[in-house]
């Protein structure tokens, strides 16, 4: 193998598993350390700069970081990264003065943002401080988009959302609320320098099985139902409710129903439990509220009696998978099941919808009516129109929308300056030794053995009565500290300097997870089998030194390195050093 090029900004970035997995590449370990030190305001600002909505995401994020967390590879559960973010948001001090302060010197360029959700708001935040005149259009009376219409208040209190949306709107954004944009041509005619489409995936999929037309009055589309409840257009639901679908929207629908009159609420999913798209913790939270979830039952018919919905008939299936993992649902032959219902909520997916974009404007659409975009720049086939969030590549999540927003803002800024949008600035990186004394580091390198702490819930006898009461109580200071101490500080890198090494083996002997080996060089596949511990996780790199005096190389399997710094503590020549790697993704305003 060739020596590892640690100058490549992506090498050490990849070692910070959580940050690498985060679509917005939030420097997670950096803010977790600050939380442990009770420096909540600074922890919040690190989040805010990177993911824009720390309070919202600390409650509702899909957490792509957590399955990636190294801790999950050395023990049972990853660090509760998401809920730690909430600790920072809940306990922060005054932050507004730390954000870009308007009024900004205007640069004369005007940008239109269609849709007021996380993607558009991110673009606004990145471009407003640079002097762009931002015009934000949304059909509702407030900003926030799906964060407001689709996430129920018992998971995300309105004031948390308002606060973070307002930080952006207060930067001098021109808002055009209660304005449903029904023509792209109309927007283009206003001669904006660039247009950003962040309209999400606003069309809930219907389920056209027998009885749908007749029962329509009591059959609702999930995201429309949630929006109606959020804007208080709907205040009750029938006593018996069936929710169809196994995603997070289904979980939000059933829990919302439970709070506005649903007594017997059932979720019915056609696929097996393990294939459900909902996050495991959201399924768990629904079950804690006595909501039954039935799997392997596809709906067959809405049963109508005397012109009114009476319930739903379900078939019974089992899942079979072919060698490619493709699933087919095979009827088991058991008799159908009828479940009574006053209301049925369909939450089986949602799609992009662009009926408002005229087809002759030069904006091309591909398969599934998804716009044709450059994956890096988010530019459409009409050069000054950009897309982001769910509107770009189909439904994802808030953090992905934020990541899109940052990149689209970079593109828009370059575009408006007349520069190539493909010539993007490099990410900001910094690698600094953490040595303070012979065996002292700036970070706490003791590895806590604690298991993951659970976030306490308010009692359901109270929360089920009030749909606006937040269920999760969040970590307190002490739990927050203890959970933060579980973080392995993966951003503090083990950096090896070949010409300092005397090959004494001290690092090999001390390494608690047997990550380090000195051996003859070879091909990667071969090397992976002859290390101190076999390196079976192919997604994790091997760190390879240059050739040592004994003609061997140092190999470190990054997979389960605890970043405990013992190799560097036991190294007599400081060939190992612990260096903190900061990686900030390219943004228009940083």
């Amino acid at each position, binding site marked *: 193998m060739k020596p590892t090029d640690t100058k490549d900004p992506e090498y050490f970035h990849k070692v910070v598993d959580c940050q690498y997995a985060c679509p917005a590449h939030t420097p997670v370990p950096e803010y977790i350390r600050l939380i442990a030190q009770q420096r909540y305001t600074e922890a919040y600002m690190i989040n805010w700069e990177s993911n824009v909505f720390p309070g919202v995401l600390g409650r509702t994020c899909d957490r792509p970081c957590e399955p990636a967390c190294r801790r999950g590879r*050395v023990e049972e559960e990853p660090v509760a990264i998401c809920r730690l973010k909430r600790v920072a948001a809940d306990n922060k001090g005054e932050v507004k003065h730390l954000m870009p302060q308007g009024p900004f010197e205007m640069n004369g360029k005007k940008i239109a943002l269609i849709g007021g959700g996380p993607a558009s708001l991110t673009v606004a935040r990145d471009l407003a401080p640079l002097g762009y005149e931002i015009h934000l259009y949304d059909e509702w009376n407030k900003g926030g988009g799906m964060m407001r219409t689709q996430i129920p208040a018992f998971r995300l209190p309105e004031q948390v959302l308002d606060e973070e949306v307002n930080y952006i709107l207060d930067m001098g954004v021109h808002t055009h609320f209660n304005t449903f944009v029904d023509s792209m041509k109309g927007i283009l005619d206003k001669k904006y320098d660039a247009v950003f489409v962040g309209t999400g995936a606003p069309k809930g999929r219907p389920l056209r099985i027998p009885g749908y037309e007749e029962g329509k009055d009591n059959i609702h589309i999930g995201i429309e139902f949630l929006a109606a409840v959020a804007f208080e257009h709907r205040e009750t639901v029938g006593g018996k409710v069936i929710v169809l679908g196994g995603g997070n929207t289904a979980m939000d629908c059933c829990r919302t129903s439970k709070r506005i009159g649903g007594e017997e609420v059932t979720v019915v999913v056609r696929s097996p439990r393990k294939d459900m798209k909902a996050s495991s913790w959201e399924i768990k939270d629904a079950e804690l509220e006595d909501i039954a979830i039935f799997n392997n039952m596809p709906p067959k018919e809405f049963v109508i009696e005397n012109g009114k919905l009476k319930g739903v008939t379900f078939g019974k299936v089992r899942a079979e998978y072919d060698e490619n993992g493709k699933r087919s649902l095979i009827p088991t032959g058991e008799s159908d099941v009828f479940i009574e219902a006053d209301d049925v909520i369909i939450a089986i997916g949602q799609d992009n919808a662009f009926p408002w974009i005229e087809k002759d404007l030069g904006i091309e659409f591909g398969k599934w009516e998804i716009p044709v975009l450059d994956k890096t720049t988010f530019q459409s086939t009409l050069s000054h129109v950009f897309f982001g969030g769910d509107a770009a590549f189909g439904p994802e999540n808030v953090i992905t929308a934020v990541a899109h927003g940052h990149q689209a803002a970079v593109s828009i800024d370059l575009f408006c300056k007349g520069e190539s949008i493909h010539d993007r600035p490099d990410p900001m990186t910094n690698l600094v030794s953490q040595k303070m004394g012979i065996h002292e580091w700036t970070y706490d390198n003791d*590895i806590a053995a604690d298991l993951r702490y659970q976030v306490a819930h308010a009692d359901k006898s109270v929360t089920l009565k009030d749909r606006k009461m937040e269920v999760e109580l969040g970590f307190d200071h002490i739990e927050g500290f203890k959970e933060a101490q579980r973080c392995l500080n993966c951003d503090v890198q083990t950096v090896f300097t070949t010409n300092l090494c005397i090959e*004494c*083996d001290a690092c090999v002997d*001390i390494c*608690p997870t047997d990550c380090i080996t000195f051996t003859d060089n070879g091909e990667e596949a071969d090397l992976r089998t002859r290390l101190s511990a076999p390196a*079976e996780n192919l997604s994790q790199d091997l760190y390879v030194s240059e050739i040592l*005096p*004994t003609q061997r190389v140092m190999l470190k399997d990054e997979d389960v390195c605890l970043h405990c*710094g013992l190799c560097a503590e036991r190294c007599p020549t400081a060939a190992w050093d612990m260096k903190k790697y900061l990686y900030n993704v390219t943004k228009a305003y940083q």
Partner: protein
Amino acid sequence: MSYIKPAFHHPSLKPNKVGYLKKDYRGVISTLCAGCGHDSISGAIVQACYEISLEPHKLAKLSGIGCSSKTPTYFLSNSHGFNSVHGRMPSITTGANMANKDLIYLGVSGDGDTASIGMGQFVHAIRRNLNMVYIVMNNGCYGLTKGQDSATADFGSISKEGNANPYQAIDLAGLALELNATFVGRSFSGDKNQLVPMIKAAMSHPGFAFLDVISPCVTFNNTKTSTKSYSHVRDHIEATSTLDYVPFEEEITVDYPEGESAEVELFDGSKIHLSKLAPDFNPTDRFTAVNRLHEAKSKGQILTGLLYINPESKDLHNLMGTSDKPLNQFKQKDLCPGSTKLEEINRAFR
């Protein structure tokens, strides 16, 4: 500074045959200087015990005084241990071994603890062929008292202190051969590929198994002019052969080229396989070993590997004809059979 090792281990390292993970053979974090060769030897002991699936309670580690003698704290935390008086580890081991022959005795000593204050004890343990592994962590200096030259420092070697050693060195491996030790090996802390199988073989050997392990002192004796520095040893090391230890129940799976290899079967049925054997070297012939050692020394080379093994070794218990049952398992009733029995014995002599 870390003083507690993290509890986690590499998930692809599985438990051995007796259900222990490698970390179960470790000790607490070393307080020796960073980069000390002794820590590597501790690492090799951990590796060897994990690989042969030793049950930790079946081993006793004993030591004297010195940097080397501190190391039993840094390996095999779940085994028995005795940190004894300076140079007196062989006596303590003898006593322990006499009382309970069922344990593996691992004695750890240094060049001061063995070649100076403990010399008298050392030679007599060899003479009696006490069943133990005797490891000398040999760094040629007294590290614990600021690095003065020890009795094993080579003539002319210059440590950090700066003066050439005017005295002749005691070659412990040569001495052990001279005294008819039944297992003599030499190795280097920086060569685990050689050291680990050698420790395993030594543990299987019934009798006194001596390992002289050169172990650089990074703080006082790792200068370019020292003959016990990492770089000097690496430049002058010469191996008699490469060594494989094959436990009793396992098949030999490696193909060894003929003529360049030899096999020695140990008392317990396990085998030592030597390959890439130096020409005319026979590990069971003491005279070649002595000659080779002298030749290498005259060329300034450090001869390592298994130097000599006597497959017919009979240990002290065997020589004394002690009972098969360990002495510590006898009850008072067995040991004091009473006056009637005494009368009977006395009558036999009349």
